[in-house]
């Protein structure tokens, strides 16, 4: 018989909790409350934008990729939470700033804080450090890095439109769960334009060391981006047909470049 402790190593889900009658044992009840309290506190924290800016500048140095900070129409974190419409649009000064960066880009890389500061603080730079060399090797023309404050997913559409990029790759802090407060999400939109909706996007969720690790997330991003640019589509029309990792040889740690 396999002991519970071993089963529990197979998933971060709360399994094998035991029970008091049909209910949770005291220890588990309080553990849940503590995790919830921490997640609630995390929602109100802002990312360290200065640090992120430095990190992006370092990454982009050799490639001469600039890092541009922009802001959405939302002014405070509270307003951001209750007014998603404001988080989807650029503030006018930011929009004006982007006019001079129009170019012949295959993609615009945008980072937005979303609902988890921790996702950006911990995972944005390390993930891009894995992704960027592959994009460069594949000769994608990359626009300047965009750092969008209080931005929602759709702000990537307006940014991509301003830059005249063929596609937007938007990285955003996903809402913090109880077991993971640092999940980064990737949203790909081909032909980004203000007013596009969810069916036109492909999403990769849960990019973090304990979730979809950086190597696999980068492979998937490059796969979707390549297919998207080749076929001129994204979203529900573009199916992810990549063989899942658990069906492959798990030993391979090499990034497939072609």
């Amino acid at each position, binding site marked *: 018989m*396999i002991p519970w402790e071993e089963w529990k190593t197979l*998933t971060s*889900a709360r399994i094998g*909790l035991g029970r008091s009658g*049909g209910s949770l044992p005291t220890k588990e009840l309080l553990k849940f409350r503590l995790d919830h309290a921490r997640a609630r506190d995390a929602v109100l924290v802002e990312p360290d934008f200065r640090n992120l800016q430095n990190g992006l500048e370092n990454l982009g140095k050799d490639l001469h990729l600039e890092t541009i900070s922009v802001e959405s129409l939302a002014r405070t974190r509270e307003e951001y*939470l209750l007014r998603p419409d404001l988080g989807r649009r650029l503030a006018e000064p930011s929009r004006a700033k982007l006019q001079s960066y129009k170019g012949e880009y295959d993609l615009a890389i945008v980072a937005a804080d979303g609902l988890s500061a921790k996702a950006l603080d911990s995972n944005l730079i390390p993930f891009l450090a894995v992704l960027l060399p592959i994009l460069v090797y594949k000769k994608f023309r990359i626009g300047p890095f965009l750092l969008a404050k209080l931005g929602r997913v759709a702000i990537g559409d307006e940014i991509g439109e301003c830059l005249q990029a063929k596609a937007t790759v938007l990285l955003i802090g*996903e809402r913090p769960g109880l077991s993971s407060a640092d999940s980064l999400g990737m949203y790909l939109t081909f032909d980004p334009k203000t007013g596009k909706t*969810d069916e036109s996007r492909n999403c990769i*969720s849960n990019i973090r060391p304990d979730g*979809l690790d950086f190597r696999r997330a980068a492979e998937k991003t490059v796969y979707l981006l390549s297919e998207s640019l080749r076929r001129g589509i994204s979203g529900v029309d573009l199916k992810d047909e990549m063989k899942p990792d658990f069906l492959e040889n798990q030993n391979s740690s090499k990034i497939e470049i072609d």
Partner: protein
Amino acid sequence: MGYKTVLGTKTYSFPDLKSLLAKASPLRSGDELAGVAASTQEERIAAQMALADLHLSEFLNIELVPSESDEVTRLILESHDKVAFSSISSFTVGELRDFLLSEKTDSIAISKIRDGLTPEMLAAVSKLMSNQDLILAARKSPVITKFRNTLGLPGRLATRLQPNHPTDDPKGIAASILDGLLLGSGDAVIGINPATDNVPTVIALLEMLDAIIQKYSIPTQSCILCHVTTSMKAMEAGAPLDLVFQSIGGTEALNKSFGVDLSILAESQQMALELKRGTVGNNVMYFETGQGSALSAGAHFGIDQQTLEARAYAVAKKFDPLLVNTVVGFIGPEYLYNGKQILRAGLEDHFCGKLMGLPMGVDICYTNHADADQDDMDNLLTLLGAAGCNYIMGVPGADDVMLSYQSTSFHDALYLRQVFGLRPAPEFETWLLESGLFDQAQAFLPKENKGQFLLEGILGESSR
């Protein structure tokens, strides 16, 4: 033409039906965000008073979204049954409430008028109803569906075993399935939200679930909650698919934002029916809905979010689903701000769905940026138990590690079954007892670790 209510010297005017419905709606953040909510509490009640006096036939004459541009409106009008409507055609909205609550109105009386009710009529009457009204009337409207077991019988409560995993790892999923089955969860469906909409992953997970269900002869069904077109690709590839899943909404434009329309849903239903995988019935569709999605997609046309949600049920009804799930607090506080708003929305959705004749389940849930906690979920859970909800979610420890939200747990289902003396679906109950997993003597609770070894092969199953 407009509507008005005179209160003393003050006259409240409502220019059209959709503004009357929106302003009569109980307070919620999404309607405020859309700019359609009443601006004062008094205006809200004035709207409810005007709405109470409105004749039901008015809803057949006014299209909230023009039928020329909206196939959901066309569907609602085409599927309206005039014969069923005839006995209530003279009713006002207020009289419909009185009728539904009358002690003379039982489930048979409701089933007779059911097809004469449009989603907008039900949304309207729900706005007049108190929470207890919504519970009482829904309780009178049981809806029974079948695939490999029978769901929705009075005195029964099923659960969807939701063993999600952040990277769709089969072993991690299997561990959660095992935990859920040992706690009596999974009769509504064993349903996985995949981390990505990847066709080979969907097929691999379908095969894994099918192997588990067959090996242990579990009277239940499986579902991978991917996009309908992905399910169709999986079926084309010969995957063992039980149920077709899709998120749907109350306008053509919203459905388009989900990448679907009525014809693609019909096509997928036909494909699933042809697989003939049900044993006791043939309800092959599984829909999810939730207030706020239309506004989120910019497809709300100035209509309040609860009325739009009710219109989504007309879409669901066309396809005889096994399960319809309103995911009530999933999107966030910009649509339902706090525990009170989530609770009210859950009861409204359950009521409107049941009165339409849908097998309603509720994903009683919230996110960490909403002003809600587990006690709010306990409240709604208990009220839905009283209202006769078909099923709830069974998520390990109420914490979904893939979708990052909090829902109801295997333990919550055990609680609800104890409080109301509810039992799982009959076929599943028999399986739990016959496999020695559950004890009938102790308020229908699991036997202590007795059945564990019986099912441990599930962990091996996942490496297939």
